[in-house]
Protein backbone atom coordinates (compact mmCIF):
# COMPACT_ATOMS: atom_id res chain seq x y z
CA UNK A 1 0.00 0.00 0.00
CA UNK A 2 2.81 2.33 0.92
CA UNK A 3 4.40 1.73 -2.46
CA UNK A 4 1.18 2.28 -4.32
CA UNK A 5 0.41 5.58 -2.69
CA UNK A 6 3.89 6.88 -3.34
CA UNK A 7 3.58 5.92 -6.97
CA UNK A 8 0.21 7.64 -7.07
CA UNK A 9 1.82 10.80 -5.78
CA UNK A 10 4.56 10.66 -8.40
CA UNK A 11 2.11 10.07 -11.19
CA UNK A 12 -0.24 12.73 -9.93
CA UNK A 13 2.57 15.25 -9.96
CA UNK A 14 3.54 14.10 -13.46
CA UNK A 15 -0.02 14.65 -14.54
CA UNK A 16 0.00 18.13 -13.06
CA UNK A 17 3.20 18.97 -14.83
CA UNK A 18 2.00 17.61 -18.13
CA UNK A 19 -1.28 19.44 -17.71
CA UNK A 20 0.71 22.63 -17.39
CA UNK A 21 2.77 21.66 -20.42
CA UNK A 22 -0.25 21.20 -22.56
CA UNK A 23 -1.62 24.62 -21.83
CA UNK A 24 1.66 26.40 -22.44
CA UNK A 25 3.87 24.24 -24.58
CA UNK A 26 6.51 26.95 -24.85
CA UNK A 27 7.33 26.77 -21.16
CA UNK A 28 7.99 23.44 -19.53
CA UNK A 29 11.59 23.37 -18.66
CA UNK A 30 12.61 22.39 -15.14
CA UNK A 31 9.83 19.98 -14.28
CA UNK A 32 10.03 18.11 -17.57
CA UNK A 33 11.10 14.48 -17.47
CA UNK A 34 14.78 13.87 -18.10
CA UNK A 35 15.68 12.57 -21.57
CA UNK A 36 15.96 8.94 -20.54
CA UNK A 37 13.62 6.00 -20.74
CA UNK A 38 11.15 6.08 -17.90
CA UNK A 39 10.76 2.71 -16.19
CA UNK A 40 7.43 1.11 -16.94
CA UNK A 41 5.29 2.03 -13.94
CA UNK A 42 4.11 -0.96 -11.96
CA UNK A 43 0.47 -1.61 -12.44
CA UNK A 44 -1.13 -1.45 -9.02
CA UNK A 45 -3.96 -3.78 -10.08
CA UNK A 46 -1.51 -6.59 -10.65
CA UNK A 47 0.32 -6.23 -7.39
CA UNK A 48 -2.53 -5.43 -5.04
CA UNK A 49 -4.87 -8.38 -4.57
CA UNK A 50 -8.61 -7.78 -4.06
CA UNK A 51 -8.61 -4.00 -4.08
CA UNK A 52 -11.32 -2.08 -2.29
CA UNK A 53 -13.75 -0.17 -4.48
CA UNK A 54 -12.16 3.20 -3.72
CA UNK A 55 -8.68 1.90 -4.57
CA UNK A 56 -9.94 0.66 -7.89
CA UNK A 57 -11.19 4.10 -8.84
CA UNK A 58 -7.88 5.54 -7.80
CA UNK A 59 -6.08 2.85 -9.73
CA UNK A 60 -8.08 3.66 -12.78
CA UNK A 61 -7.23 7.33 -12.57
CA UNK A 62 -3.59 6.50 -11.96
CA UNK A 63 -3.45 4.23 -14.97
CA UNK A 64 -5.21 6.78 -17.10
CA UNK A 65 -2.74 9.46 -16.08
CA UNK A 66 0.14 7.11 -16.82
CA UNK A 67 -1.36 6.34 -20.23
CA UNK A 68 -1.72 9.98 -21.07
CA UNK A 69 1.78 10.73 -19.81
CA UNK A 70 3.19 7.92 -21.93
CA UNK A 71 1.42 9.21 -25.03
CA UNK A 72 2.63 12.77 -24.52
CA UNK A 73 6.13 12.06 -23.31
CA UNK A 74 8.82 13.92 -25.24
CA UNK A 75 11.48 11.98 -27.14
CA UNK A 76 15.01 13.23 -27.73
CA UNK A 77 17.58 13.21 -30.54
CA UNK A 78 21.31 13.40 -31.04
CA UNK A 79 22.87 16.56 -32.49
CA UNK A 80 22.06 17.31 -36.14
CA UNK A 81 20.34 13.90 -36.41
CA UNK A 82 16.85 12.69 -37.13
CA UNK A 83 17.54 9.01 -36.43
CA UNK A 84 15.46 7.62 -33.55
CA UNK A 85 17.47 6.64 -30.48
CA UNK A 86 16.74 3.29 -28.79
CA UNK A 87 15.04 5.02 -25.85
CA UNK A 88 12.91 6.97 -28.33
CA UNK A 89 11.90 3.75 -30.11
CA UNK A 90 10.90 2.12 -26.79
CA UNK A 91 8.89 5.22 -26.00
CA UNK A 92 7.18 5.11 -29.40
CA UNK A 93 6.40 1.40 -28.88
CA UNK A 94 4.57 2.35 -25.70
CA UNK A 95 2.75 5.16 -27.50
CA UNK A 96 1.73 2.71 -30.19
CA UNK A 97 0.16 0.42 -27.57
CA UNK A 98 -1.87 3.36 -26.33
CA UNK A 99 -2.91 4.37 -29.83
CA UNK A 100 -3.93 0.81 -30.72
CA UNK A 101 -6.14 0.67 -27.62
CA UNK A 102 -7.63 4.07 -28.46
CA UNK A 103 -8.67 4.24 -32.11
CA UNK A 104 -10.19 7.69 -31.66
CA UNK A 105 -6.90 9.21 -30.54
CA UNK A 106 -5.11 11.54 -32.93
CA UNK A 107 -1.81 13.18 -32.15
CA UNK A 108 0.41 15.93 -33.43
CA UNK A 109 4.19 15.52 -33.38
CA UNK A 110 6.26 18.72 -33.40
CA UNK A 111 10.00 18.52 -34.07
CA UNK A 112 12.40 20.92 -32.34
CA UNK A 113 16.13 21.63 -32.55
CA UNK A 114 18.85 23.11 -30.43
CA UNK A 115 20.33 26.45 -31.39
CA UNK A 116 23.60 25.22 -32.83
CA UNK A 117 22.77 24.68 -36.49
CA UNK A 118 21.63 27.25 -39.01
CA UNK A 119 18.29 28.70 -37.85
CA UNK A 120 16.52 28.23 -41.17
CA UNK A 121 17.93 24.76 -41.79
CA UNK A 122 16.69 23.81 -38.31
CA UNK A 123 13.11 24.26 -39.54
CA UNK A 124 13.77 21.46 -42.04
CA UNK A 125 15.58 19.34 -39.45
CA UNK A 126 12.71 19.69 -36.96
CA UNK A 127 10.31 18.57 -39.66
CA UNK A 128 12.43 15.47 -40.30
CA UNK A 129 12.47 14.63 -36.58
CA UNK A 130 8.69 14.77 -36.49
CA UNK A 131 8.45 12.65 -39.65
CA UNK A 132 10.88 10.07 -38.22
CA UNK A 133 8.58 9.43 -35.25
CA UNK A 134 5.50 9.40 -37.45
CA UNK A 135 7.09 6.92 -39.85
CA UNK A 136 8.07 4.63 -36.98
CA UNK A 137 4.42 4.48 -35.89
CA UNK A 138 2.86 4.16 -39.34
CA UNK A 139 5.38 1.48 -40.39
CA UNK A 140 4.00 -0.52 -37.47
CA UNK A 141 0.39 -0.14 -38.42
CA UNK A 142 -0.84 3.13 -36.99
CA UNK A 143 -2.98 4.88 -39.59
CA UNK A 144 -1.18 7.91 -41.03
CA UNK A 145 -4.36 10.00 -40.82
CA UNK A 146 -4.10 9.87 -37.03
CA UNK A 147 -0.78 11.70 -36.91
CA UNK A 148 -0.06 15.31 -37.86
CA UNK A 149 3.47 16.65 -37.98
CA UNK A 150 5.01 20.10 -37.59
CA UNK A 151 8.33 21.80 -36.97
CA UNK A 152 9.34 24.73 -34.83
CA UNK A 153 13.04 24.62 -35.70
CA UNK A 154 14.95 26.18 -32.86
CA UNK A 155 12.34 28.86 -32.32
CA UNK A 156 10.67 27.38 -29.22
CA UNK A 157 13.36 25.95 -26.93
CA UNK A 158 12.24 23.87 -23.93
CA UNK A 159 15.10 25.26 -21.88
CA UNK A 160 17.45 28.20 -22.26
CA UNK A 161 21.17 27.77 -22.05
CA UNK A 162 24.28 27.09 -24.08
CA UNK A 163 25.43 23.82 -22.53
CA UNK A 164 25.07 20.30 -23.95
CA UNK A 165 22.65 19.69 -21.05
CA UNK A 166 20.31 22.41 -22.37
CA UNK A 167 20.84 21.52 -26.02
CA UNK A 168 20.04 17.84 -25.40
CA UNK A 169 16.68 18.80 -23.92
CA UNK A 170 15.86 21.02 -26.90
CA UNK A 171 16.51 18.39 -29.61
CA UNK A 172 13.13 16.73 -29.33
CA UNK A 173 9.73 15.71 -30.61
CA UNK A 174 6.79 16.99 -28.56
CA UNK A 175 3.49 15.13 -28.68
CA UNK A 176 0.06 16.67 -28.43
CA UNK A 177 -3.39 15.03 -28.28
CA UNK A 178 -5.56 16.60 -30.96
CA UNK A 179 -8.52 14.16 -30.80
CA UNK A 180 -9.86 11.38 -28.59
CA UNK A 181 -8.22 12.61 -25.41
CA UNK A 182 -11.51 12.79 -23.53
CA UNK A 183 -12.23 9.07 -24.13
CA UNK A 184 -8.72 7.87 -23.40
CA UNK A 185 -8.54 4.31 -21.95
CA UNK A 186 -5.59 2.61 -20.41
CA UNK A 187 -4.55 -0.33 -22.60
Amino acid sequence: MMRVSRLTLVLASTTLVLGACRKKPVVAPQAEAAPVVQPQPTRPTNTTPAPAARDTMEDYRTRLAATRARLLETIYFEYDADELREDAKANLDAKMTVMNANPAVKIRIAGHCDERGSDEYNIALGRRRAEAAKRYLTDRGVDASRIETASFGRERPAVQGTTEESWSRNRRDEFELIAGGDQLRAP
Partner: protein
Amino acid sequence: MPQTMPRSLSLHVWPMLAGVLLAVGTTVPSHAAAQAQPPGVSLSTRYVAGQKTALIVLPVKGVNGDSVATILARDFDYSDRFNVVSTSSAPVVNGPPNYPLFSRLGVDGIVQPTLLPSGWVRVALHDVSKTAVLNSKDFPLPSPALSPAWRSAMHGVSDAVEEWITGQRGIAQTRIAFTRGGRVWIVDSDRANVTPATPSGMSPQWLPGGRGLVYSVLDGVRNPIMMTDLGTGSQRTVAASPGIEHSSPAIAPDGRTVVYARGSESGTDLYAMPIEGGAPRRMTVGRGRASTQPTFSPDGQRIAFMSDRSGHPEVYISDLDGTNVELLTAAAFGDRDYRAGPDWSPDGRLVAFQSRNGGTFQIMTINLRDQSVKFVTNDGRNDDPSWAPDSRHLVFSSTRAGTRQLWIVDVETGRSRQLTFGSEARLSAWSPRLLSQ
Protein backbone atom coordinates in the same frame (compact mmCIF):
# COMPACT_ATOMS: atom_id res chain seq x y z
CA MET B 1 57.00 66.47 -43.78
CA PRO B 2 54.19 67.58 -46.08
CA GLN B 3 53.66 65.47 -49.13
CA THR B 4 55.18 66.96 -52.20
CA MET B 5 53.62 64.49 -54.59
CA PRO B 6 50.66 65.84 -56.47
CA ARG B 7 47.39 65.09 -54.73
CA SER B 8 44.24 65.14 -56.70
CA LEU B 9 40.61 64.38 -56.26
CA SER B 10 38.76 63.77 -59.43
CA LEU B 11 35.15 63.91 -60.45
CA HIS B 12 33.32 60.72 -61.23
CA VAL B 13 33.59 61.32 -64.95
CA TRP B 14 37.11 59.93 -64.55
CA PRO B 15 36.54 57.25 -61.96
CA MET B 16 39.27 54.94 -63.20
CA LEU B 17 41.85 57.64 -63.46
CA ALA B 18 40.71 58.95 -60.08
CA GLY B 19 41.39 55.58 -58.54
CA VAL B 20 44.99 55.67 -59.60
CA LEU B 21 45.46 59.33 -58.69
CA LEU B 22 43.89 58.89 -55.28
CA ALA B 23 46.04 55.91 -54.57
CA VAL B 24 49.07 57.98 -55.45
CA GLY B 25 47.88 60.96 -53.49
CA THR B 26 47.93 59.36 -50.07
CA THR B 27 50.77 58.91 -47.68
CA VAL B 28 52.16 55.62 -48.94
CA PRO B 29 55.37 56.41 -50.81
CA SER B 30 55.06 53.64 -53.39
CA HIS B 31 54.45 56.05 -56.21
CA ALA B 32 55.65 53.75 -58.92
CA ALA B 33 53.80 50.75 -57.55
CA ALA B 34 50.53 52.67 -57.51
CA GLN B 35 51.05 53.88 -61.04
CA ALA B 36 51.70 50.32 -62.10
CA GLN B 37 48.12 49.37 -61.22
CA PRO B 38 46.37 48.19 -64.35
CA PRO B 39 44.05 50.74 -65.89
CA GLY B 40 40.37 50.05 -65.49
CA VAL B 41 40.62 49.21 -61.80
CA SER B 42 38.82 51.77 -59.68
CA LEU B 43 39.66 52.64 -56.13
CA SER B 44 36.46 51.13 -54.84
CA THR B 45 37.29 47.61 -55.91
CA ARG B 46 41.02 47.74 -55.36
CA TYR B 47 41.49 48.73 -51.77
CA VAL B 48 45.08 48.74 -50.55
CA ALA B 49 45.68 49.28 -46.84
CA GLY B 50 46.99 52.76 -46.12
CA GLN B 51 45.92 54.19 -49.45
CA LYS B 52 42.54 55.61 -48.53
CA THR B 53 41.62 59.17 -49.38
CA ALA B 54 41.70 61.41 -46.29
CA LEU B 55 38.51 63.46 -45.87
CA ILE B 56 37.54 66.08 -43.35
CA VAL B 57 34.03 67.41 -42.75
CA LEU B 58 34.06 71.06 -41.69
CA PRO B 59 31.98 72.20 -38.70
CA VAL B 60 28.49 73.35 -39.71
CA LYS B 61 26.85 76.49 -38.36
CA GLY B 62 23.20 76.45 -37.32
CA VAL B 63 20.85 74.65 -34.94
CA ASN B 64 21.46 71.18 -36.35
CA GLY B 65 24.91 71.86 -37.71
CA ASP B 66 26.62 69.46 -35.34
CA SER B 67 24.25 66.67 -36.36
CA VAL B 68 24.96 67.31 -40.04
CA ALA B 69 28.72 67.17 -39.56
CA THR B 70 28.49 64.12 -37.30
CA ILE B 71 26.26 62.14 -39.66
CA LEU B 72 28.35 62.92 -42.74
CA ALA B 73 31.67 62.15 -41.04
CA ARG B 74 30.34 58.89 -39.61
CA ASP B 75 28.92 57.82 -42.97
CA PHE B 76 32.29 58.42 -44.66
CA ASP B 77 33.96 56.43 -41.91
CA TYR B 78 31.48 53.54 -42.19
CA SER B 79 32.00 53.42 -45.96
CA ASP B 80 35.52 52.09 -45.24
CA ARG B 81 36.75 53.97 -48.32
CA PHE B 82 38.16 57.02 -46.54
CA ASN B 83 40.34 58.05 -43.67
CA VAL B 84 38.13 60.55 -41.87
CA VAL B 85 40.01 63.30 -40.08
CA SER B 86 38.17 64.55 -36.99
CA THR B 87 35.98 67.59 -37.61
CA SER B 88 37.20 69.11 -34.34
CA SER B 89 40.75 69.32 -35.70
CA ALA B 90 39.69 71.43 -38.70
CA PRO B 91 41.30 74.87 -39.07
CA VAL B 92 38.74 77.69 -38.91
CA VAL B 93 37.39 78.44 -42.37
CA ASN B 94 36.01 81.87 -43.26
CA GLY B 95 35.85 82.24 -46.98
CA PRO B 96 38.18 80.01 -49.02
CA PRO B 97 39.95 77.35 -46.94
CA ASN B 98 43.64 77.73 -46.21
CA TYR B 99 44.59 74.71 -48.28
CA PRO B 100 48.22 74.38 -47.11
CA LEU B 101 46.96 74.09 -43.51
CA PHE B 102 44.73 71.18 -44.54
CA SER B 103 47.51 69.67 -46.57
CA ARG B 104 49.70 69.61 -43.47
CA LEU B 105 46.90 67.71 -41.67
CA GLY B 106 47.17 65.05 -44.36
CA VAL B 107 43.75 65.94 -45.76
CA ASP B 108 43.04 65.23 -49.45
CA GLY B 109 39.45 66.38 -49.59
CA ILE B 110 37.40 68.92 -47.62
CA VAL B 111 33.65 68.44 -47.32
CA GLN B 112 32.05 71.78 -46.54
CA PRO B 113 28.33 71.59 -45.70
CA THR B 114 26.22 74.72 -45.20
CA LEU B 115 22.65 74.72 -43.89
CA LEU B 116 20.65 77.08 -46.10
CA PRO B 117 17.75 79.24 -44.87
CA SER B 118 15.45 77.16 -47.09
CA GLY B 119 16.20 74.10 -44.97
CA TRP B 120 18.32 72.59 -47.74
CA VAL B 121 21.98 71.76 -47.32
CA ARG B 122 24.73 72.89 -49.69
CA VAL B 123 27.80 70.67 -49.87
CA ALA B 124 31.08 71.76 -51.46
CA LEU B 125 33.90 69.30 -52.02
CA HIS B 126 37.38 70.87 -52.09
CA ASP B 127 40.43 69.23 -53.60
CA VAL B 128 43.29 70.26 -51.34
CA SER B 129 46.06 69.61 -53.86
CA LYS B 130 44.27 71.54 -56.59
CA THR B 131 43.27 74.24 -54.09
CA ALA B 132 39.86 74.33 -55.70
CA VAL B 133 36.23 73.33 -55.30
CA LEU B 134 35.69 70.11 -57.23
CA ASN B 135 31.94 69.98 -56.95
CA SER B 136 29.08 71.67 -55.11
CA LYS B 137 25.42 70.87 -54.90
CA ASP B 138 22.30 71.85 -52.94
CA PHE B 139 20.32 68.94 -51.49
CA PRO B 140 16.71 69.15 -50.25
CA LEU B 141 16.05 67.96 -46.70
CA PRO B 142 12.57 67.04 -45.46
CA SER B 143 11.36 68.54 -42.21
CA PRO B 144 11.33 68.22 -39.32
CA ALA B 145 15.09 68.17 -38.90
CA LEU B 146 16.50 65.03 -37.27
CA SER B 147 13.42 62.98 -38.20
CA PRO B 148 14.03 59.54 -39.76
CA ALA B 149 13.28 60.97 -43.23
CA TRP B 150 15.68 63.89 -42.64
CA ARG B 151 18.41 61.54 -41.47
CA SER B 152 17.80 59.32 -44.52
CA ALA B 153 18.16 62.34 -46.82
CA MET B 154 21.39 63.30 -45.04
CA HIS B 155 22.73 59.78 -45.66
CA GLY B 156 21.82 60.35 -49.31
CA VAL B 157 24.06 63.44 -49.27
CA SER B 158 26.95 61.31 -47.94
CA ASP B 159 26.34 58.75 -50.67
CA ALA B 160 26.34 61.44 -53.37
CA VAL B 161 29.62 62.95 -52.15
CA GLU B 162 31.14 59.47 -52.05
CA GLU B 163 30.10 59.03 -55.66
CA TRP B 164 31.80 62.35 -56.61
CA ILE B 165 35.06 60.96 -55.24
CA THR B 166 35.01 57.24 -55.99
CA GLY B 167 32.59 57.02 -58.91
CA GLN B 168 30.38 54.70 -56.84
CA ARG B 169 27.42 55.75 -54.78
CA GLY B 170 27.73 54.97 -51.06
CA ILE B 171 25.48 52.78 -48.93
CA ALA B 172 24.71 55.06 -46.00
CA GLN B 173 21.15 55.58 -47.24
CA THR B 174 20.14 51.96 -46.60
CA ARG B 175 18.44 50.02 -43.85
CA ILE B 176 18.78 46.55 -42.41
CA ALA B 177 15.77 44.36 -41.59
CA PHE B 178 16.29 41.71 -38.94
CA THR B 179 14.64 39.23 -36.58
CA ARG B 180 14.27 39.95 -32.88
CA GLY B 181 11.82 38.60 -30.33
CA GLY B 182 9.67 36.81 -32.91
CA ARG B 183 9.11 39.82 -35.17
CA VAL B 184 10.88 41.79 -37.89
CA TRP B 185 12.63 45.08 -37.10
CA ILE B 186 14.39 47.69 -39.21
CA VAL B 187 17.45 49.77 -38.35
CA ASP B 188 19.27 52.47 -40.33
CA SER B 189 22.75 51.60 -41.61
CA ASP B 190 24.23 53.87 -38.92
CA ARG B 191 22.31 52.16 -36.06
CA ALA B 192 19.66 54.89 -35.75
CA ASN B 193 15.87 54.36 -35.78
CA VAL B 194 15.44 50.81 -34.50
CA THR B 195 11.78 50.21 -35.37
CA PRO B 196 9.47 47.17 -35.38
CA ALA B 197 8.16 46.50 -38.89
CA THR B 198 5.84 43.49 -38.50
CA PRO B 199 3.65 42.05 -35.72
CA SER B 200 5.42 38.67 -35.95
CA GLY B 201 7.80 36.73 -38.15
CA MET B 202 11.41 36.08 -39.08
CA SER B 203 13.80 35.89 -42.06
CA PRO B 204 12.92 39.22 -43.75
CA GLN B 205 13.84 40.00 -47.37
CA TRP B 206 13.50 43.37 -49.14
CA LEU B 207 11.34 44.10 -52.13
CA PRO B 208 13.03 46.14 -54.89
CA GLY B 209 13.43 49.78 -53.96
CA GLY B 210 12.86 48.94 -50.31
CA ARG B 211 9.10 49.44 -50.61
CA GLY B 212 8.28 46.39 -48.52
CA LEU B 213 9.42 43.18 -46.90
CA VAL B 214 8.64 39.52 -47.39
CA TYR B 215 9.10 37.31 -44.32
CA SER B 216 8.00 34.02 -42.78
CA VAL B 217 5.91 33.27 -39.70
CA LEU B 218 6.42 29.99 -37.84
CA ASP B 219 3.14 29.97 -35.94
CA GLY B 220 2.53 26.20 -35.94
CA VAL B 221 -0.73 26.60 -37.84
CA ARG B 222 -0.34 27.84 -41.42
CA ASN B 223 3.30 28.98 -41.15
CA PRO B 224 2.85 31.57 -43.90
CA ILE B 225 5.11 33.66 -46.10
CA MET B 226 3.87 37.22 -45.54
CA MET B 227 4.46 40.54 -47.25
CA THR B 228 4.31 43.98 -45.67
CA ASP B 229 4.07 47.30 -47.48
CA LEU B 230 6.35 49.67 -45.57
CA GLY B 231 4.48 52.68 -46.93
CA THR B 232 1.09 51.67 -45.56
CA GLY B 233 2.06 49.11 -42.92
CA SER B 234 -0.41 46.60 -44.38
CA GLN B 235 0.33 42.86 -44.22
CA ARG B 236 -0.84 40.20 -46.62
CA THR B 237 -0.34 36.45 -47.00
CA VAL B 238 1.76 35.30 -49.96
CA ALA B 239 1.73 31.53 -49.28
CA ALA B 240 0.13 29.50 -46.50
CA SER B 241 -1.40 26.10 -45.90
CA PRO B 242 -2.17 24.04 -42.78
CA GLY B 243 0.52 21.68 -41.57
CA ILE B 244 3.18 23.05 -43.94
CA GLU B 245 6.20 25.17 -43.00
CA HIS B 246 6.87 28.02 -45.44
CA SER B 247 10.22 29.54 -44.60
CA SER B 248 13.34 31.32 -45.80
CA PRO B 249 11.90 33.46 -48.63
CA ALA B 250 13.98 35.06 -51.39
CA ILE B 251 12.73 37.63 -53.89
CA ALA B 252 13.76 37.77 -57.53
CA PRO B 253 15.58 40.97 -58.55
CA ASP B 254 12.55 42.05 -60.61
CA GLY B 255 10.33 41.66 -57.54
CA ARG B 256 7.87 39.39 -59.31
CA THR B 257 8.80 35.95 -58.00
CA VAL B 258 9.28 34.64 -54.47
CA VAL B 259 11.17 31.41 -53.81
CA TYR B 260 10.75 29.77 -50.43
CA ALA B 261 11.31 26.48 -48.61
CA ARG B 262 8.21 24.33 -48.17
CA GLY B 263 8.40 21.72 -45.42
CA SER B 264 5.95 18.84 -45.58
CA GLU B 265 5.93 15.11 -44.88
CA SER B 266 7.79 14.62 -48.15
CA GLY B 267 10.66 16.80 -46.96
CA THR B 268 11.70 20.42 -47.36
CA ASP B 269 12.02 21.68 -50.93
CA LEU B 270 12.22 24.98 -52.76
CA TYR B 271 9.15 26.35 -54.52
CA ALA B 272 8.74 29.43 -56.70
CA MET B 273 5.54 31.41 -57.10
CA PRO B 274 4.43 34.78 -58.48
CA ILE B 275 4.52 37.22 -55.59
CA GLU B 276 1.11 38.59 -56.55
CA GLY B 277 -0.40 35.11 -56.34
CA GLY B 278 -0.53 31.97 -58.44
CA ALA B 279 0.40 28.33 -58.36
CA PRO B 280 3.65 27.39 -56.60
CA ARG B 281 6.13 25.57 -58.84
CA ARG B 282 8.43 22.99 -57.32
CA MET B 283 12.14 23.61 -57.92
CA THR B 284 13.93 20.85 -56.00
CA VAL B 285 13.11 17.20 -55.32
CA GLY B 286 14.95 16.24 -52.14
CA ARG B 287 13.16 12.93 -51.45
CA GLY B 288 13.20 13.68 -47.75
CA ARG B 289 16.45 15.63 -47.78
CA ALA B 290 16.21 19.37 -47.31
CA SER B 291 16.80 22.30 -49.64
CA THR B 292 16.37 25.76 -48.17
CA GLN B 293 17.87 29.28 -47.90
CA PRO B 294 17.59 30.30 -51.56
CA THR B 295 19.27 33.46 -52.91
CA PHE B 296 18.96 34.87 -56.44
CA SER B 297 21.79 35.75 -58.79
CA PRO B 298 21.57 39.44 -59.72
CA ASP B 299 20.35 38.58 -63.23
CA GLY B 300 17.54 36.50 -61.71
CA GLN B 301 18.47 33.46 -63.79
CA ARG B 302 20.02 31.24 -61.12
CA ILE B 303 19.75 30.55 -57.42
CA ALA B 304 22.18 29.46 -54.74
CA PHE B 305 20.74 27.48 -51.83
CA MET B 306 21.74 25.08 -49.09
CA SER B 307 20.92 21.39 -49.11
CA ASP B 308 21.86 18.32 -47.08
CA ARG B 309 21.23 16.00 -50.04
CA SER B 310 24.81 14.73 -49.86
CA GLY B 311 24.44 13.85 -46.17
CA HIS B 312 25.62 17.14 -44.77
CA PRO B 313 24.76 20.78 -45.47
CA GLU B 314 26.44 22.35 -48.49
CA VAL B 315 25.73 25.25 -50.83
CA TYR B 316 24.54 24.51 -54.37
CA ILE B 317 23.74 26.58 -57.44
CA SER B 318 21.04 25.72 -59.97
CA ASP B 319 18.94 27.23 -62.71
CA LEU B 320 15.54 28.58 -61.70
CA ASP B 321 13.79 25.40 -62.83
CA GLY B 322 16.03 23.34 -60.55
CA THR B 323 18.19 21.92 -63.35
CA ASN B 324 21.95 22.25 -63.83
CA VAL B 325 22.69 21.79 -60.14
CA GLU B 326 26.29 22.35 -59.13
CA LEU B 327 27.86 21.83 -55.74
CA LEU B 328 29.43 25.20 -54.97
CA THR B 329 31.22 24.75 -51.67
CA ALA B 330 32.55 21.23 -51.19
CA ALA B 331 35.50 21.38 -53.55
CA ALA B 332 37.02 24.19 -51.58
CA PHE B 333 36.74 22.58 -48.16
CA GLY B 334 37.07 18.83 -48.42
CA ASP B 335 35.23 17.14 -45.60
CA ARG B 336 34.50 20.10 -43.34
CA ASP B 337 31.01 19.48 -42.36
CA TYR B 338 28.53 22.34 -42.52
CA ARG B 339 27.91 25.15 -44.99
CA ALA B 340 24.69 27.22 -44.98
CA GLY B 341 23.10 30.65 -45.37
CA PRO B 342 24.30 31.65 -48.87
CA ASP B 343 23.79 35.21 -50.14
CA TRP B 344 24.72 36.19 -53.69
CA SER B 345 26.49 39.55 -54.00
CA PRO B 346 24.66 42.24 -56.00
CA ASP B 347 27.60 42.50 -58.44
CA GLY B 348 27.33 38.75 -59.07
CA ARG B 349 30.95 37.97 -58.24
CA LEU B 350 30.75 36.40 -54.79
CA VAL B 351 28.55 34.19 -52.66
CA ALA B 352 28.84 34.73 -48.91
CA PHE B 353 27.88 31.88 -46.59
CA GLN B 354 28.52 30.45 -43.14
CA SER B 355 30.91 27.54 -42.71
CA ARG B 356 31.63 25.59 -39.59
CA ASN B 357 35.29 25.03 -38.95
CA GLY B 358 36.55 23.75 -35.64
CA GLY B 359 33.19 23.95 -33.97
CA THR B 360 31.95 27.47 -34.73
CA PHE B 361 30.41 29.08 -37.79
CA GLN B 362 32.44 31.68 -39.64
CA ILE B 363 31.43 33.84 -42.57
CA MET B 364 33.24 33.12 -45.82
CA THR B 365 33.01 34.26 -49.41
CA ILE B 366 33.58 32.21 -52.53
CA ASN B 367 34.50 33.81 -55.82
CA LEU B 368 32.30 32.37 -58.57
CA ARG B 369 34.92 32.83 -61.26
CA ASP B 370 37.86 30.97 -59.73
CA GLN B 371 36.21 29.32 -56.67
CA SER B 372 38.70 31.02 -54.37
CA VAL B 373 37.44 31.33 -50.79
CA LYS B 374 38.14 33.84 -48.07
CA PHE B 375 37.30 34.04 -44.37
CA VAL B 376 35.74 37.35 -43.39
CA THR B 377 35.22 36.54 -39.67
CA ASN B 378 37.25 34.63 -37.12
CA ASP B 379 35.73 35.51 -33.74
CA GLY B 380 32.67 33.96 -32.06
CA ARG B 381 29.84 32.27 -33.89
CA ASN B 382 28.78 34.02 -37.11
CA ASP B 383 25.61 33.30 -39.10
CA ASP B 384 23.47 34.33 -42.07
CA PRO B 385 25.42 36.94 -44.06
CA SER B 386 23.59 39.48 -46.24
CA TRP B 387 25.30 41.77 -48.76
CA ALA B 388 25.05 45.53 -48.86
CA PRO B 389 24.31 47.06 -52.28
CA ASP B 390 28.02 47.90 -52.67
CA SER B 391 28.92 44.15 -52.73
CA ARG B 392 31.60 45.02 -50.23
CA HIS B 393 29.91 45.11 -46.83
CA LEU B 394 28.09 42.22 -45.15
CA VAL B 395 25.68 42.20 -42.23
CA PHE B 396 25.47 38.98 -40.19
CA SER B 397 24.79 37.82 -36.66
CA SER B 398 27.68 37.18 -34.30
CA THR B 399 28.20 36.11 -30.70
CA ARG B 400 31.65 37.74 -30.54
CA ALA B 401 30.51 40.25 -27.92
CA GLY B 402 28.23 37.94 -25.93
CA THR B 403 24.60 37.72 -27.02
CA ARG B 404 23.89 37.23 -30.69
CA GLN B 405 23.86 40.65 -32.38
CA LEU B 406 24.15 42.05 -35.87
CA TRP B 407 27.57 43.13 -37.05
CA ILE B 408 28.80 44.68 -40.28
CA VAL B 409 32.11 43.77 -41.90
CA ASP B 410 33.91 45.32 -44.85
CA VAL B 411 35.18 42.27 -46.75
CA GLU B 412 37.93 44.38 -48.37
CA THR B 413 39.59 45.46 -45.13
CA GLY B 414 38.10 43.09 -42.55
CA ARG B 415 37.03 46.10 -40.48
CA SER B 416 33.83 45.42 -38.54
CA ARG B 417 31.35 47.27 -36.34
CA GLN B 418 28.40 46.30 -34.19
CA LEU B 419 25.00 47.30 -35.60
CA THR B 420 22.51 46.20 -32.90
CA PHE B 421 22.52 46.10 -29.12
CA GLY B 422 20.06 44.69 -26.60
CA SER B 423 18.19 41.43 -26.95
CA GLU B 424 19.24 38.82 -29.51
CA ALA B 425 19.18 39.94 -33.17
CA ARG B 426 19.62 37.59 -36.15
CA LEU B 427 18.41 36.62 -39.65
CA SER B 428 18.99 40.01 -41.26
CA ALA B 429 18.75 41.45 -44.75
CA TRP B 430 20.43 44.57 -46.10
CA SER B 431 18.11 46.79 -48.14
CA PRO B 432 18.80 48.00 -51.65
CA ARG B 433 19.67 51.69 -51.97
CA LEU B 434 16.70 53.78 -50.81
CA LEU B 435 16.93 56.69 -53.21
CA SER B 436 13.63 58.53 -52.88
CA GLN B 437 12.31 58.97 -49.38
